[in-house]
């Protein structure tokens, strides 16, 4: 009987060791992929950091209308943020490649599904970035235009426009990612409608006189009531 127990133990040990041995190439492949990806990430981020520093990226980002990016960045440097983000993406890609080297159905399925999700993720990122740029541009246009029209609530209008476009961009991005589903649509409707209603109330109540003056001016074709000083510019 003891002989049978010993044999069973030997068999299970052999089985376990052979299974462990069958995993070893996968582990080695994962480690190799990780080491290579870390090296590539390090080299690429060093090259990118130098190029962006030469391009004066930190200052340009602020000028393009994204001063807040510096606040989110490590050491207040958007260059560092970009280079680190790219380095981590490369390491993550290396990890995925390493995982797929395991001869198992689960890791392979995970990697395949993750890669299938990547186009949607990229689209969502592009939509979000483009939405942010457009929001900032429109907000600045509205702010300058409203100040030049002497509207006291210029900033409120500008912030309203910025949030309208941002909410729209975030909703499209989330829908693309398949997050939230119906709740997102409902929340978007409520938020968008709320912002429009708030703006309409603020502008409508605040500019009753301005609108009536403007209509009056259009009807009678008289010069602006705001300023009509006898001043010549040219």
């Amino acid at each position, binding site marked *: 009987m003891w002989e049978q127990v010993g044999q069973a133990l030997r068999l299970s040990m052999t089985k376990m060791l052979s299974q462990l041995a069958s995993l070893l190439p996968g582990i080695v492949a994962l480690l190799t992929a990780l080491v290579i990806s870390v090296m590539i990430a390090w080299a690429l981020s060093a090259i990118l950091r130098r190029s962006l520093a030469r391009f004066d990226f930190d200052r340009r980002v602020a000028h393009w209308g994204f001063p807040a990016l510096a606040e989110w960045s490590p050491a207040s440097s958007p260059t560092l943020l970009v280079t680190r983000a790219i380095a981590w993406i490369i390491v993550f890609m290396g990890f995925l490649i390493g995982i797929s080297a395991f001869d198992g159905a689960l890791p392979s399925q995970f990697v395949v599904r993750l890669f299938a999700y990547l186009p949607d993720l990229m689209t969502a990122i592009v939509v979000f970035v483009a939405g942010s740029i457009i929001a900032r541009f429109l907000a600045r246009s509205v702010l300058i235009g409203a100040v030049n029209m002497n509207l006291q609530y210029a900033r409120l209008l500008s912030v309203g426009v910025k949030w309208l476009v941002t909410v729209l961009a975030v909703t499209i991005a989330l829908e693309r990612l398949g997050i939230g589903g119906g709740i997102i649509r409902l929340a978007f409707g409520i938020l968008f409608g709320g912002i429009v209603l708030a703006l309409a109330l603020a502008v409508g109540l605040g500019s009753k006189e301005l609108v009536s003056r403007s209509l009056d001016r259009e009807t009678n074709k008289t010069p602006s009531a705001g300023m009509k*000083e006898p001043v010549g510019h040219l």
Partner: protein
Amino acid sequence: MELDAIPQPELEQIDRIGGADLVIGIIGSERPEQNDSAAGMVREVLAELSKPLRAMVVCNNGTHSPAAVPEVPEDSQSPAVFFCSLPPPAPGETPQHGISNAYRTIFTVGGKLAVRACCVIASRPENATPGWIHRLVQPVLDLGFDLVAPCYTRQKMEGLLNRSVLAPLHGALYGQRLQNPMGPDFGLSGKLLQRILAQYSARRRGPERSLLASIAPAAAFNGFQVCESQLGVRHQSPTDWDNLSSLLSEILGAAFFEMEARAAHWQSIRGSQTLPRFGQPEVPSPENATPVDVHGMLQSFRLGAQNLQDVWGLILPPTSLLELRRLSRLTDDQFRFPDQLWVRIIYDFALGYRLQTISRDHLLRSITPLYLGWIASYALEMQTAGLAEVDSRSELLSKAYEDNKSYLVSRWRWPDRFNP
């Protein structure tokens, strides 16, 4: 260049004429009967000149009047007045853009006819008198000048964009003091006209530049002889306050564009010289004694200072922003815009335009509250001033532009390193 803007019959007529001594453009004449009066005026002017001349009159009212077109004489030396009509400006065109396009076509006609002189009256058509044409043409034909810039009789609250930016900026950059560097009424020699046409042909692929803004800098840049002529009172349309930011954007954009294109030239110029001025200045009619109400302008300035700090912060250095914040807290009576601050703001905006720190349209439109602040300060300062005081005030501002030119040059060369 712009020959496609000229109707076919007029083009054929230009070809038949072959050559002329003088081309006279009258922009903005709307009625067809003005064509005949323009031709009559030119005959009157030609009779006063020392030599008999062949002249071409170009109007942009789109009315071809064959009665005004005489037969082309056999002898190409005999005096005659021909007439050419251009299509009126397109409906959506801004006044400045329309003037610039008409200028281009008139110059092209002049270039094709190889004229010796060209005169363009772009102010309202009632300004086009034989006296004005004679004063713009005579220094070119009889005295050998290449550019005759206009000098108008102005009230103290007229020509404020010229007083505050265009004239002193032109003086500081190009070293020539002109009352109206952007005209819009000019007399030019054939040589200068050909040079400007060549410059346009060379830059055809680049961004479109305003011809009106490039005439005086082109003359200064290429060493042409420049003078001014007293034209008297200029009738203008009432100020369109609703579109002030568009006007500023168009005019300052053109001036800054020219500045960027000629940076290598103006950086080496120091000081400025007064140019010969012909004719007697007219005495302006007595002004309305009611002072200008600056409250609305100051309100606009304060609103800008309160809301546009983020935008101005991308263009102006911190010291200027601090000064503006201090100014916005002053009461109406105390409000004075220091010359040095104003000049540096203009220079910083020109630099921002060059560096494209933000969208150029945003940059140019965001200057409106600052300009209104300057007008308010000027109006308060000049409330009781006579014309002599107004002139000396303009002199002081011109000096401030010249004194601060080193600031502009330093920032232009090292925008990042030199940031006070």
